[in-house]
């Protein structure tokens, strides 16, 4: 049994509470629908996220392994010299997107490719470095996509949790309390009404006896 609110059992209070209950029920329904839709969207993103992360991790691991290998075979300074001035530059244009009124980031990759894919002469380093850099270049797009989706997932999960709290608060606290109070006030008012009727009948019978 829900705790009843501490209000005076008056007609005015009753009307106010009934209005409030109507709003609460409507709000609850809307929030619940929102939550359902958010979870549906979230699952789509989460599945994408999982697949993308698996791919990125696997490919990145391979690329980094060959990079480490290249470093091991060649002179350290040669490698540093080779990569320290990249020929291509990467910039992002970052905007935001609205998913279920959660503001999530959206990235778009701009690459200014230099003349060569590899910013060094082939003589100084081994083929492993070529491999790793070529894979990494391909992977860029996916990594940015992963960043976008992972962030979206994060934020949606947060929002879903918050929303669930709201739904639960309405469903298990606010609505039962209001209903309970409305019942209490109705009963109290009815009781007063009955008391009044009885009193009137009594007075009437006393008056009738006197005549």
């Amino acid at each position, binding site marked *: 049994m829900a705790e009843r609110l501490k209000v005076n059992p008056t007609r005015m209070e009753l009307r106010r509470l009934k209005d409030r209950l109507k709003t609460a029920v409507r709000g609850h329904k809307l929030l619940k629908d929102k939550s359902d839709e958010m979870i549906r969207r979230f699952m789509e993103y989460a*599945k994408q996220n*999982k697949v993308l992360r698996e791919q*990125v991790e696997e490919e990145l*691991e391979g690329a980094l392994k060959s990079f480490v290998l290249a470093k091991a075979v060649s002179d350290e300074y040669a490698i540093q010299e080779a990569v320290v001035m*990249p020929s291509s530059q990467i910039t992002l244009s970052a905007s935001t997107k609205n998913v279920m009124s959660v503001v999530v980031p959206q*990235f778009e990759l701009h690459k200014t490719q230099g003349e060569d894919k590899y910013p060094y002469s082939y003589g100084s380093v081994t083929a492993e470095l070529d491999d790793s850099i070529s894979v990494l270049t391909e992977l860029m797009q996916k990594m940015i996509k992963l960043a976008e989706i992972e962030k979206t997932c994060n934020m949606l999960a947060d929002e879903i949790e918050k929303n669930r709290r709201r739904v639960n608060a309405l469903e298990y606290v606010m609505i039962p309390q209001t209903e309970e109070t409305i019942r209490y006030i109705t009963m109290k008012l009815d009781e007063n009404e009955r008391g009044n009727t009885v009193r009137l009948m009594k007075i009437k019978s006393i008056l009738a006896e006197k005549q």
Partner: protein
Amino acid sequence: MREGKIAVIGDRDLILAFKAIGMETFAATDVEQCENLIKKLAKTHAVIFITEDYAKACEHVISRYKSTAYPAIVPIPSGAGSTGYGMENIKKDVEKAVGTDILFNKED
């Protein structure tokens, strides 16, 4: 719309690879330095890639940026291979949102 930059935080050896393809790289040698780097880069960069071991160590700093759209901080596996930390995060998200893990439980 704003112009975003990409940063990579990790061991000196590893981040050279990312330098070669035109990302901005920042070397971290210990956890404290890494935390400061994250705080600094969060203001200027849209995406920060960070190697898993550091991401794990700086979790409390990273979690601070989880609820805002920027920056997106993404853990990436280091040269030694993936520790599954990134997957763990997806799993946590799903658990948080749905209440139970319905995406990964087939494998467990």
